[in-house]
């Protein structure tokens, strides 16, 4: 009996050691997107403010892809007949890297990561929508302000579960049956590129960026972005892509002034 308990003690000690290791450090998988939480962000506080669309500065630019565009992988949607039917004629492609016809990169999150005055910015009353449509998230990358409403829709005639995996915000996992009302959620804290997935359809991936101010954008079909209404100042403009990571550059912009900040991402 004594030896039995000694054996049990050894097992317990091993479990404790392993869990200590777990809490001390970890590793990221190669496909994990770059994340930054509150990195270089202006703290909340001070008077509420809105972007000055009439007199503020504007920063525009584009994100160019340098290299041979990678082939977009075909996703196997056969696990669900509804999804397979939706893509019977045009197979669903992974949107990890989408190079536009003009050689620019789509789905790049662009934001002012540093330089803004210490202000609390007014949260828009309009919601940002993410739709589960054709067994994929549309759009693939979205951005919204901390506290802004996120509307999650299911336009598919099948079940989905939406499961964001934030590190500083509260995670959630909710099922959404076909035809049900949209789910409304908010993220109270700034967090960049929160991975979102559907565990029912394991190919469905998306990213949500939550920012404590309104100066951000996501590149679309022409690879360009525009950030308007900035107070005069010098800012760090950072781009974040789920595969190619981050880049930044400093831009100084005055009142009513327009500056360009282009980026090149090497494939």
């Amino acid at each position, binding site marked *: 009996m004594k030896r039995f308990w000694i054996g049990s003690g050894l097992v317990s000690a091993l479990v404790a050691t392993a869990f200590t290791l*777990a809490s001390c450090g970890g590793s990221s998988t190669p496909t994990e997107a770059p994340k930054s939480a509150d990195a270089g962000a202006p703290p909340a506080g001070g008077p509420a403010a809105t972007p000055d669309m009439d007199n503020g500065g504007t920063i525009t630019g584009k994100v160019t892809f340098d290299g041979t565009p990678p082939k977009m992988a075909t996703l196997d949607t056969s696990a669900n007949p509804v999804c397979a039917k939706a893509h019977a004629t045009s197979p669903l492609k992974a949107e*990890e890297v989408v190079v536009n016809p003009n050689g620019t990169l789509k789905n790049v999150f662009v934001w002012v990561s540093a330089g803004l005055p210490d202000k609390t910015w007014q949260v828009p009353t309009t919601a940002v929508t993410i739709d589960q449509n054709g067994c994929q998230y549309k759009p693939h990358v979205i951005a919204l302000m901390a506290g802004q409403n996120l509307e999650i829709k299911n336009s598919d005639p099948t079940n989905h579960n939406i499961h964001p995996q934030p590190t500083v915000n509260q995670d959630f996992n909710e099922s959404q049956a076909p035809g049900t009302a949209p789910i409304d959620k908010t993220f109270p804290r700034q967090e960049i590129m929160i991975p979102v997935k559907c565990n029912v359809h394991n190919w469905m991936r998306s990213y949500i960026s939550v920012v404590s101010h309104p100066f951000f954008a996501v590149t679309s079909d022409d690879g360009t972005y525009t950030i308007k209404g900035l107070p005069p100042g010098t800012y760090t403009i950072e781009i974040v892509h789920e595969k190619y990571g981050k880049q930044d550059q400093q831009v100084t912009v005055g009142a009513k002034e327009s500056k360009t900040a282009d980026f090149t991402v090497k494939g």
Partner: protein
Amino acid sequence: MDNSRLHRFTVVVAVCTFLLVVAGSLVTSNDAALSVPDWPLSYGRLVPPLEGGIRYEFAHRVMAALVAVLTIVLAVWLERAEPRRWMRRLGWAAVGAVLLQAGLGGAAVRLVTPKTLTIAHACLAEICFGLVVAVVAGQTMQLAEIPRISDPAPLMAAVALFGQAILGAMVRYGAAGVGFHIIGAAIATILVMWAGLRIPLRRPALALLTLTFSQVFLGLGAYMARVVNVTMPQPMPLTVAFTSAHVAVGSLAFGAAIVLTMAPAVAHGGVALA
């Protein structure tokens, strides 16, 4: 008392528990662990829509319910028919472990997968399987008393293999780098070889050695499949196959080490039932 039917039933429980471990591994490998966001019901009902990842998760839940019932029946049967108190206690320990395991699984779903809970869930699965294997071994070897551990080698091998199960789970859930698991594999393999060489029972020792070596290659395969397919949409079938096989063979190796830990009591003159 002729307990051959009880023994056969225990083997069935052990096989079902092993299949449950495999089912759990398939859930994780297919990234389907949270495809059913509610628990104990599934999408608010007993049988959810069986599509996509829900199929894996629901099959795991059904299998878990079956194993829980079978384990309770086993404990009750042992209580009535088994003269050895330590064997009866093993049966109830298995019930406790299976019920705790169910609670951990439910908590992981309700709390949206805190890493520690999911890692604990994966590790407790090995203990559940190990406890039932111990009952089977106790019946097969007709041990009258709790086995005397006269040789530390098999016990150390079993502890090392369980440690590997913990590290493997931590790697899967991103709580540790794969380096810890690789170092652990080297240590576990050495300990298994040591145990295999010291134990006079050839067949169980050979089984443990074969399983452990297979496990090393399956681990390499799982890692390589992940590296080769890193640019492909995950999870890839090859990665799922290697990872699930790695978990399955790991459980079998742990079970074999438990059998060997109990076996020396016989080999070294432990008291056997008449």
